[in-house]
Every structure is written in structure tokens, then in C-alpha cells.
């Protein structure tokens, strides 16, 4: 579901799915929680391959953010397509998550 690599203090978790929906939300949550429990609590979730996000998946994303924050960590998102970016702005997820256009922007 996710492919990970580390860059300085960050762990980049790249979603390997086209539709981020109910079917994958729980598994995504499990995989990210495992990373946080291993101490990797600064996570960048890359949506490069994702075309559509539904509300179940957003729920999972916020849930892992809350967990990361309770461990003094943070979760940012990167490479949202236009529709997903609009959705994030529309429901104010842009105030909850740091959003970056590209991975180099994160590390800039």
C-alpha cells in the first residue's frame, strides 16, 4: 500500500494506489501507525499516484495525524492532484495538514 524511504528526519510514505478509499483506509492507518510506533513520527504522505480520495480515507489520514501529534510528530501531504487539492482546501484540511507541491519543497 505504501512505499517508504527516509530523507533526513522525514519518512516519505508514497501511496501505491489510484483510489484512496474505504477499501484501503484501514490498511493505510495500520501501516502509518506502525511507522510512528517505530519512532518515525515525521511523515510525508505522497499522493503522486492517487486520483481520488474519499471521506473514509481522509478520516484515516486525520486519525494518524492525531496519533503522530500525540507523539510529538507531524504528518504532511505532498503531490496532491488538482481535484484532491481543491477538496483539501474546501474542507479546510489545508489548515490541518502542511501541503507541499513537490518533495523537494518539503526539504527546502
Amino acid at each position, binding site marked *: 500500500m505504501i512505499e517508504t524511504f527516509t530523507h533526513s528526519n522525514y519518512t516519505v510514505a508514497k501511496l501505491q494506489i*489510484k483510489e484512496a478509499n474505504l477499501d484501503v483506509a484501514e490498511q493505510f492507518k495500520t501501516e502509518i501507525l506502525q511507522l510512528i510506533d517505530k519512532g518515525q513520527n515525521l511523515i510525508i504522505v505522497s499522493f503522486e499516484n492517487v486520483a481520488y480520495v474519499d471521506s473514509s480515507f481522509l478520516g484515516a489520514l486525520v486519525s494518524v495525524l492525531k496519533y503522530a501529534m500525540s507523539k510529538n510528530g507531524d504528518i504532511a501531504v505532498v503531490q496532491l492532484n488538482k481535484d484532491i487539492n481543491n477538496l483539501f482546501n474546501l474542507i479546510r484540511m489545508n489548515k490541518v495538514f502542511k501541503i507541499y507541491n513537490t518533495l523537494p519543497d518539503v526539504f527546502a
Partner: protein
Amino acid sequence: MPQIQKKILLVDDDRLILMLFNRALIDGGFQCSTAQSVEEAMILLGNDTPDLILSDYQMPGQDGFEFRTRVLNDKRYKNIPFVFLTSYTDRDLIQRGLDMQAVDYIDKETPVPLVVSKLNNILQAIRKEHEKSIYEIRVAAEALNLSSVPANPPVIEGFSLNFLYKSFEDYPGGDFIDFICIDNDFTFAVLGDVMGKKWGAWFFSFNFLSYIRSAIRLCVFDGDLSTASILQKINRVIFMDPVLGDVLSTLSLLMIEHKTGKVHYSGAGDLPLVYYNAHEKTCRRICSSGLLLGVMQDGLYNEEIINLAEGDQMIIVSDGMIDFELNGEKKSDYDLFFNFVMPMLGETNSFDLIKNVTFSADKRKHLVDDCSLIFIEKIKTDK
């Protein structure tokens, strides 16, 4: 009623069989994707979830049984009905397949029209079972008086209030609507969406609604008539709740002052309110600033006050109203929705126009989520 085409994933190493069945299934009204190996099938499953898998037993590399095991071990796929396709009538093989929770097996020698009928029957039986379960949940919800929408809109002098609600596949819960009249002075209109209904979150909408109903009343009894402050109080309760804190919900909260026509509006992660100004004949969107309920301790809620004059209209909607499915691709597009309803506002029958278009049978078949809408109009009085 129009039927959505069912999707079948067909797996067989024999290209000829694949072509033959692919053709027959398409002719039989199915959408079909084909894989020549288990690996290929797993990739297809990752891209799109079929309604049924039809797979050969014997294939080079991983065979049908190994495929079945992989599918069963993946909770994303384990509930997809699985049918074995076989050229054997070996009872042991059939038994082994059925023991792996395959719903049936089909002999490759079976005449094609029979295969189509058999698949249709299987899908129909599953559908019926599903409908029966949903029906039982609905009956239980009704028996417990758990309703997420009121029976009728309230009647307020000088205003016309109405709402539309269509639940996705008739599951109860998900979106919720409520109107709370306080004396004869104020009416609160509530529209919320518990996100992630399909994974069972709908069940929480009743809890949310209870919280919200009591919070509004308690605030009003305490003299708090600010929608932003009420939202923040609800937010804090949900943020600290160990169960509800993990469930996200949007909320639009409106307070209508009956005498002045003022409407106070605050929102939590909700979609912009559509406001039609009758005097200017203009339509604009009003955005709230607050976060989804329960995300952060401080939800950053603001409060907009809109002075409704005679003929002015406003609508608030849940996100299901802006979901569209075009050529199998899903997208959420608020602008598309806004431009779609704009020409219908400012008419004497605006609500009916919107209802007829957005809730037509043709639209409903593309529903991918609950759809809700609240419509408020300050009625013109004859002077």
C-alpha cells in the same frame, strides 16, 4: 430501475477461453477485465474492485487455489464473491474450491448463456442478502427511534424551509439533518456528514446528533446564542471523546432569527453556503473557516451574519451533492454544483427545480455517497 453494470474479473491462463468468456460476459451485460495469471489479477484488483471474480483452477505458476488464498488473506478483497471456472469435473477439486469459500464453480463446457444466467443469479442472491441485512438495520434503527433526518421541515412564519435527503444504498445514518426551534424566536438548522459511512461510521451519526442536539439546547439555556461558540463547545466534547475523536464529521450550523431575518452561520469543514440575493439578483458562496469536528482542540470557528431580505434564498449541502461519476472516474467538484444550481435560484419554485434536477432518477443512480441539502428562503409578503 436502471442497473449499474456489474464488473467481473476473469482469470485464466488460456487466452482463447479468456477471449471467449470476455466476449460472452460483455454481451451478457457485464463489464469484464481479464488476467492471464494470478500476478496480473492481483494488479487489476489493486486498480479496481470487481463485483465477482471468476477464476480457473489450474494455471502455471500460482494456481487458482493459491489465488483464492491470497484473496482471502487480503481484507480488501476477501468479500468479493469468488467463482471457480473449471474444465474438470473432479469432485475433489470442486470440493476443495468450495471449502475455500468459493460461492460456486462453473464448468467451462457450460453453454455461454447459462454461464451468464448463473452469474446473474449469484449476484442477485448476494444483492438480496445485502438488502435484507440493510433492511434489518433500518428496522432496528427505527425501533430505537434513531433517525438522522426529521420527518418534515419546520414551519416558521415568514420563511420557507425545506430539505432533501437521499442515503447511499439506503443505509441509515451518514448525513444528518435537524431543525431545533427555540421558543418562537430562533430556529437552528443543522446539517452534518459523518465521514466514512461505509465502514460503519454511520452508526456514530446518531451519537453526533445527540451531542449536537443537547449542546445547542444547553448553550441556548445558558444564554449562548453564538453559532461559532456552540460549534466550538461541540468540537471540544468530540475532540476529547476517545471513540468519536477518531470519527470525522462536518457540520453546518445556522441560526435563523425569526423577527429580524438574520441568519448566523458557522461551519466545521463544511462546503460553502450558497446565498442568493434577490435585490441584486446575484448568487455567491459564503465560506466558513472552521475545521472538521474533533480534529483539533481549537476548531477556529468563525460566524457570518447574513441579513436575509424578502426573496433571498440560501442552501447548504453535504459533500455527496458535489460528487460526480463520469466514465467510471469519481470526482468532487463544488464549482460544477454551484454553476448547476445557480440558474435555479431566485425562482418562485427554486426548491422544486433543484429537487427535480439533483434528485432525479438518473442522478440517483450515480450516487456514491449520502446527499443532503437544506433550503431556506425569506418569503415575499404582499404589501
